[in-house]
């Protein structure tokens, strides 16, 4: 069947109309401009993904993205200073307020140095917008998230700013680096942040992302984080998606893993109207350990999609995936996990599991594990479960005196807890447990 080019949607037309001006105003040297143009051409050729694009089968952006929004402006110096003064604005909604961490603040897609403080041996943090203009330190940009994907293409075309983080060879970063993404303003805007992290050989770091924005504002974000994991590096990455309840959030994590690297990444979704998180992981050395997990607490008409593309391109790799969805009301959860084991990738050990608890008759979960195995000496498995809370367990807890809402909350916290257990940093895990408890409490008193 030949490809049919559907009629362009208003959002597609607006994005196409916006690009020429954006290309001029957005930061970037000649190389970056060429990169933007190539990405934009890829987007223009394909348009927004829809349900007939297999990778986007359950998240139809053509339908969801009604219109393209103007790009958000950077904070000016005065605004940033005012923000730093008005402590309440900055501290409200910060799930990791108590965390002892190096802080990097990105407001509306732009790095705000005056609100950031990173002072750690072996760590450099630079403004991506500057790096795009000078070309310094961005050789790896776009090399880890290079799939032919419209969300990635749109970010590459419109990326406004962000940070470039370098962790030196052998550095063991003393505390987590906390990237705090804040969306501000009463007007709905489009925001395209980009982060490039290079972790040197043998280095160890915990990277935390938290995304937040105001409720009731239908802003759109499309963030890309690229992490180059050096040989024998040890990386833990935790992402909290607490965008506003009307937000549409697309996010991509691309990683290229060096020999014997250990990389753990977790995405935790709470509030946005629509969230799509995609992970592209490539095994570029042997004896790599990858652990990708996710947890989502969904209600109302929320829609959250986790899509993985794990490329076992070298032998002796291990990958673990665990995704947990709790879905209430008319919310929708999606898990798509594609694991490719290349012919050379013998002795690959892969285990993937997706579990969902549906709390209402109208809740929906789509589970789509996809294993493509071209090597013959591998151990790969996957599982998917989907169902209501176990009535017998519920009765057991109630027979001990726990009222139904408390008993359900205990069971759901335990369910999500199995994913949160993967977080090594105690205070990060406790912060996400607290978020879970708050969600469950709100449900219990509903």
């Amino acid at each position, binding site marked *: 069947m030949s490809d049919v080019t559907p009629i362009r949607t208003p959002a597609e037309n607006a994005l196409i109309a916006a690009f020429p001006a954006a290309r001029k105003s957005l930061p970037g040297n000649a190389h970056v401009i060429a990169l933007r143009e190539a990405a934009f051409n890829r987007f223009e050729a394909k348009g927004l993904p829809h349900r007939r694009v297999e990778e986007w089968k359950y998240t139809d952006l053509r339908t969801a993205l009604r219109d393209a929004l103007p790009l958000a402006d950077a904070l000016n110096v005065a605004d940033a200073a005012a923000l730093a003064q008005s402590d309440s604005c900055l501290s409200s909604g910060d799930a990791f307020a108590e965390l002892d961490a190096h802080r990097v603040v990105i407001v509306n897609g732009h790095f705000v140095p005056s609100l950031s403080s990173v002072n750690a041996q072996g760590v450099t943090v630079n403004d991506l917008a500057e790096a795009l203009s000078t070309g310094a330190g961005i050789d790896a940009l776009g090399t880890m998230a290079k799939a032919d994907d419209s969300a990635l293409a749109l970010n590459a075309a419109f990326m406004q700013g962000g940070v470039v983080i370098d962790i030196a060879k052998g550095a063991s970063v003393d505390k987590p680096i906390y990237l705090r993404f804040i969306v501000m303003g009463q007007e709905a805007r489009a925001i395209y942040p980009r982060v490039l992290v290079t972790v040197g050989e043998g280095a160890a770091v915990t990277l935390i992302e938290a995304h937040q924005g105001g409720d009731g504002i239908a802003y759109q974000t499309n963030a890309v984080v690229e992490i180059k994991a050096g040989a024998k590096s040890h990386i833990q990455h935790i992402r909290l998606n607490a965008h506003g309840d009307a937000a549409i959030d697309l996010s991509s994590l691309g990683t290229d893993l060096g020999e014997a690297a250990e990389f753990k990444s977790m995405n935790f979704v709470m509030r946005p109207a629509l969230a799509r998180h995609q992970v592209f992981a490539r095994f570029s050395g042997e004896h790599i350990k990858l652990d990708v997990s996710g947890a989502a607490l969904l209600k109302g008409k929320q829609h959250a999609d986790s899509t993985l593309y794990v490329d076992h391109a070298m032998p002796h790799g291990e990958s673990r995936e665990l995704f947990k969805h709790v879905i209430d009301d008319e919310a929708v959860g999606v898990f798509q996990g594609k694991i490719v084991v290349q012919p050379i990738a013998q002795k690959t050990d892969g285990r993937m599991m997706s579990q969902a608890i549906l709390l209402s008759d109208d809740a929906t979960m789509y589970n789509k594990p996809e294993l493509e195995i071209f090597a013959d000496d591998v151990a790969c498995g996957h599982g998917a479960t989907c169902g209501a809370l176990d*009535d*017998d*367990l519920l*009765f*057991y*807890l*109630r*027979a*001990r*005196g*726990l*009222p*139904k809402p*408390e*008993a359900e909350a*205990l*069971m759901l*916290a*335990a*369910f999500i*807890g*199995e994913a949160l*257990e993967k977080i090594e940093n105690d205070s990060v895990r406790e912060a996400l447990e607290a978020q879970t408890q708050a969600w469950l409490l709100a449900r219990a008193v509903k």
Partner: protein
Amino acid sequence: MLEIRNLHVSIEDKKILNGLNLTVHDGEVAAIMGPNGSGKSTLSYVIAGKPDYDIHDGEILLDGENVLEMDPDARAAAGIFLAFQYPLEIPGVATMTFLKAAMQAQRKARGEEELSTAEFMKRVRDQAGHLGIPQDMLKRGLNVGFSGGEKKRMEILQMALLEPKFCILDETDSGLDIDALKVVSEGVNRLRAKDRSFLVITHYQRLLNYIVPDTVHVMAHGQVVKSGGKELALELEANGYADYKTLAA
């Protein structure tokens, strides 16, 4: 005092209890024996409030109050405790967390003050000590990876901490070796009190050597068909249930 009057119960259109009558006085240990399928476990679930059953007629009165109108958690707060035949595993819920949640929920339901953490810990340590439950077991997920004997001990620990008025032991002896049986029985005997009564459901007389009942009731076809003293259990052990299987039919 627990009184069951003319209780008729079915599940999925299958009649299980057919006008059952039973009275257990305060401080009494009543044993219920009977062949497989006579409705013993159903009786225990119905008293505790498991929602799967259709109650067609009858009453269950705890100190004069009909518990059939109450949710399972309200029954627990009112003093009913069921030690499960097959205690469930709850991965991810530490035993300690669960014990505390259960105790505080019951106290709250009764309008009592919350226990302080120190007092809670003290009670758990004392009772766990009696039952030979090591501290590290209390940190693990509830019943996860516990042996049959450990699970039953955990049930008795919960019973001891929750201090119920009316305890149901549903085949607590099943799956226990003789040593575990002794520990569990001693745990139960320690809880015997003037104002606390027990309904001990079992197939075998053996358990009743350790938990000596005041009364023994034989169930068949969803009714109590014979009641007597502890000697009735010995008689059953000698003669089997053959006489009773046809009695009520």
